[in-house]
């Protein structure tokens, strides 16, 4: 059936904001940094097409090591978050009832609506040389001089895991919630031990939630900036810091654009891989969250 011109106009007007948004704020900017990442300076204010920015990344150890470190630490943080969050999600979804359940979930949500910087500030005040933990250790006599717990990988991992927990707990709890109690009971009834039931029934059922949680935590961790910089200090060495340095401090935009593309590639590749391995779609995964 032919559409009337008035209907076409209405449709166009309705589509206009979405097209402006996606076109001007997402697609064209990404085309821009893609183009930028392949341009190299041949003379002052003269740029030409080339791969130098990417070559620079592979030849300068600081860059690719930071990249590899970021990727590796992010995977580690994701795994740790999953292990720590699972018992909590299981408790919220399957043990707690009624108001206790609602309270526990709400208490989980609250800290994460507070700015990331406030949370990081809290960890800094706890961990630094003049901080609360160090003070308590001295007060109880466990240490005789101030202890610096900040500016090391442990602090960075702690901060990142803390920041990722909620995004793991919610999808996990949602997935576990839908498991029929009778199925678990049948597992025990047929002679399964706690561990067998967990491994053969509960975890396979929670798989969509596990995938969703892991993908989100990984993306947030890899793209994080404030936590590694503030908790890791000079030892933070996060790849986003390199992007910031190229763009804002050194004003080498083509190099920064190349780094940005690499980060985007890394995060998309992991998301794609995660979805591929478990046969989930992006839409349903995001809805889990």
């Amino acid at each position, binding site marked *: 059936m032919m559409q009337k011109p008035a209907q076409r106009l209405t449709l166009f007007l309705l589509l206009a904001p979405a097209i402006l948004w*996606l076109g001007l704020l997402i697609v064209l900017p990404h085309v821009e940094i893609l183009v930028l990442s392949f341009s190299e300076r041949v003379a002052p204010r003269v740029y030409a097409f080339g791969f130098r920015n990417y070559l620079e990344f592979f030849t300068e150890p600081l860059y690719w090591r930071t990249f590899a470190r970021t990727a590796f630490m992010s995977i580690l943080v994701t795994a740790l978050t999953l292990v720590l969050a699972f018992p909590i999600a299981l408790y919220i979804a399957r043990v707690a009832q009624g108001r206790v359940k609602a309270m526990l979930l709400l208490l989980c949500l*609250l800290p994460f609506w507070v700015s990331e910087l406030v949370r990081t500030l*809290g960890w800094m005040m706890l961990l630094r040389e003049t901080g609360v933990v160090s003070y308590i250790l001295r007060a109880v006599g466990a240490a005789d001089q101030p202890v610096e717990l900040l500016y090391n990988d442990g602090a960075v991992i702690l901060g990142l895991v803390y920041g990722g927990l909620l995004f793991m707990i919610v999808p996990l709890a949602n997935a576990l919630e839908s498991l029929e109690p009778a199925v678990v009971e049948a597992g025990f009834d047929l002679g399964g031990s706690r561990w067998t039931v967990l491994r053969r029934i509960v975890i396979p059922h929670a798989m969509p939630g596990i995938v969703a949680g892991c993908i989100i935590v990984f993306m947030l961790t890899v*793209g994080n900036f404030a936590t590694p910089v503030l908790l890791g200090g000079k030892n933070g060495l996060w790849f986003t810091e390199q992007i910031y340095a190229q763009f*804002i401090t050194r004003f080498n935009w083509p190099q920064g654009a190349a780094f*940005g593309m690499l980060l*985007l590639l890394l995060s998309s590749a992991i998301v794609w891989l995660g979805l591929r391995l478990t046969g989930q779609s992006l839409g349903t995964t995001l809805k889990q969250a």
Partner: protein
Amino acid sequence: MNRPSLAWKLYIAAFYVFLFAPLLIVAIFAFNASPFPSPPWRGFTLEWFTGSGAAFGKPGVLTDPVWLSSIGNSFKVAIPVALLAVLVGTVNAWVLERAEFRGKTFLAMMMLWPLVIPGVVLGISILAFFSRLANGLEDWLQTDLDFLRPGLSLVILGQLSFILTISTLIIAARLRKFDRSLEEAAFDLGASRTRVLRTVTLPFLRPSLIGAGLVALLMSFENFNTTLMLVGSDAPLPITMYGQMREGATPAINAVSLLLMLGVGGIASVFALTAKAER
């Protein structure tokens, strides 16, 4: 499985201590009568909220122009972001749920895309693209286009790039639950198209419009990664906090944080109440 072991219960308790310890420390030390945000406890004071700086050499949050202006900047960003997020989000939700056209699935996928782009990358890509746009337009128009340069207007655009996805999803989820026969009934009873929209559809969507607005407000207020790349000389709150945290701050930063927590708590309870009214 329904009788949790003691170890499990202890773990849960330890988890919630772990969850709230940093926030509690931040809140408590907002009232410490010391020039540094660290122990020991030197007595209770409100100096870091209302003090003029006479006691510790640095003013409290509510008298310090640096903090006040960054709070102001955050509002200057967050309010337009929230309003635009609701407005555009509603139109987008309409497109997703009501319109029929080729390429709709593709558009729906595109709308989800911003969620999987790291915030820093969103920031630099918008920075680079708008700089090129500004250079081109300025050469062509022979005039300065400061709003396309790093600054609050660019921060608004940068935050919108991904907050729009969130607001669209929230409003579309509610619109999906709408019973179309309500609109038909209103139309059947003699209402015009605009009247149906005003008296039936929008009132039904209202909880999600408020919800999407509040979520957008919060996300804008606390966004750091994207904002950092696009900010000019006027720093919103998270940027100022970041700067102070790197240089070593006074307990005024704890006071700001506490105010922020209270604000978030307030908005969260409004949100919870509207969510309840929805049911």
